[in-house]
């Protein structure tokens, strides 16, 4: 990906995609699920003048056609790739493969806590390759729009992570647009204000400027407590920052709220229709809405509201093989259970998951 993105160019490309198909391996946009108004959100179903549009349309058609791209699974089970010294990398990567995982990432806080020697870097690359593990990225901590002076510190952290990812031969860093509170996981009332949006855009522009020439995707993860919590915001952020390295670390579950909790097929389709060419990798989680207040809870993958058939089919229709991080479970056994469900659902619809599970 090269060249500066302009909003006009993006709109022209989107229009062309709508008229002629997306031009890639992914299918043409599903017009039934595309918004028709100028408002971010799924299309009305019925009774929109007096009902929230929380139930899906009757007889919604799902396109479960598998694509040609396989999916590599990574996880947050242990042992993990961390910044720890003295690691036996051959043993570490072999244990990942033995568990059915074929990709991995690392968390920035521990990873950047120390400098690695050239020989250690070489050993990591050698052992990852020998065990057929793709070390694709650094999952970044921090809050790039935190109240000053912390924002500067965290922007610097992301910049360091980008250089380290480049050094390691990774594809991406994963980061977030942040919160106006110090802890970005706490939603601030002004996170959706123009001020917060501008802070996020300017922070990312600065990060792009200070890493110009480094070919590492800066994948943004949607989080519901932040302004990037829907596919339209993802798309607009890339346009406003104006750098093609701003991509998507797709976490559909993180975009869910009451309005979409029972309309996941449409949300997934709409997201891929809008963002397919920007998706750098994906996260796998699931959720259920099981209480009176609109508090969603984590569920075992494949048992909740996420439409995993549609999700896996759409990932497999991306132009290139994609890494999928299974996250937010607790025990290694839960990660194995999640992997079994993913592989079963994928097998049912003809999607290829790389490798095998013991």
């Amino acid at each position, binding site marked *: 990906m090269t060249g500066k993105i302009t909003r006009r160019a993006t709109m022209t490309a989107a229009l062309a995609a709508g008229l002629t198909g997306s031009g890639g391996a992914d299918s043409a946009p599903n017009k039934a699920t595309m918004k028709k108004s100028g408002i971010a959100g799924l299309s009305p179903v019925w009774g929109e003048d007096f009902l929230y549009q929380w139930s899906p349309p009757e007889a919604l058609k799902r396109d479960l056609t598998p694509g040609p791209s396989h999916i590599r699974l990574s996880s947050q089970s242990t042992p993990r790739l961390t910044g720890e010294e003295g690691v036996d990398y051959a043993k570490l990567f072999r244990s990942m493969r033995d568990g059915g995982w074929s990709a991995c990432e690392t968390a920035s806080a521990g990873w950047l806590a120390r400098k690695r020697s050239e020989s250690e870097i070489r050993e990591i690359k050698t052992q990852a390759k020998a065990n057929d593990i793709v070390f694709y990225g650094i999952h970044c901590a921090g809050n790039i729009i935190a109240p000053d002076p912390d924002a500067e510190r965290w922007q610097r952290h992301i910049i360091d992570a980008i250089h380290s990812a480049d050094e390691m031969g990774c594809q991406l860093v994963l980061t977030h647009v942040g919160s106006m509170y110090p802890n970005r996981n706490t939603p601030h009332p002004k996170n959706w204000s123009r001020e917060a949006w501008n802070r996020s855009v300017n922070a990312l522009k600065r990060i792009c400027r200070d890493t110009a020439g480094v070919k590492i995707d800066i994948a943004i993860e949607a989080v519901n407590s932040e302004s990037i919590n829907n596919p339209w915001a993802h798309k607009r952020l890339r346009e406003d920052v104006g750098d093609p390295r701003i991509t998507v670390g797709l976490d559909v579950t993180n975009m869910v709220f009451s309005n979409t909790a029972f309309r996941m097929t449409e949300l997934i389709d709409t997201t891929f229709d809008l963002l397919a060419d920007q998706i750098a990798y994906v996260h796998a989680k699931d959720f259920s809405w*099981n209480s009176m207040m609109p508090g969603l809870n984590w*569920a075992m993958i*494949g*048992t909740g*509201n996420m439409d*995993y058939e549609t999700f896996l089919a759409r990932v497999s229709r991306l132009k290139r093989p994609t890494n999928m991080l299974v996250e*937010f*479970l607790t025990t290694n056994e839960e990660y194995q259970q999640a992997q079994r469900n993913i592989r079963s659902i994928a097998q049912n619809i003809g999607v290829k998951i790389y490798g095998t599970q013991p």
Partner: protein
Amino acid sequence: MKIAMKKSLLAFCATLLLPGVALAAPDFSGSWIRDNGKSEQVSYPLFWLTRGVDPGGRVNGDFILDVQQDARTIKINDPQRPRRVLELDGKARTVPMDTGMQSAAVAAHLSADTLTVVTIGSYGGMPGNVGSKTQEIWSLSPDGKILTIATTRESPATKQDFKVIFNRK
């Protein structure tokens, strides 16, 4: 997985159709009070929540289950879920799941000692869920005063078991 599940349901149905098995079938008719102290806490709908989240099963309480059974059917009125009417011939029937968004194959059969209900469908009844097979085995104590429903739920991830006890009202 779907093919495997269909095969397993067919095999199950075949065994149920053996002649003479249902000659002395138990009768579950009556009102049954759930014994909260002796029952495992099970949420309805059956969520599989992770990260230590309580699915809310403790609100089950001592509710009343009403059952009407005749030679051909059993009607189950559980205040926590939609009314069920099951044919007791062991044949699988396609019915909408409680979410109304997916279908399941359900077969019910009376043996000399038990009622077995097998449901094959998607785990949570939502589109894109993993497949699952749920087997309920209903049985009565020798004096007919205690009803036990033992449920096993199988998915590719794992097998889950839970038991609920009712006392005759």
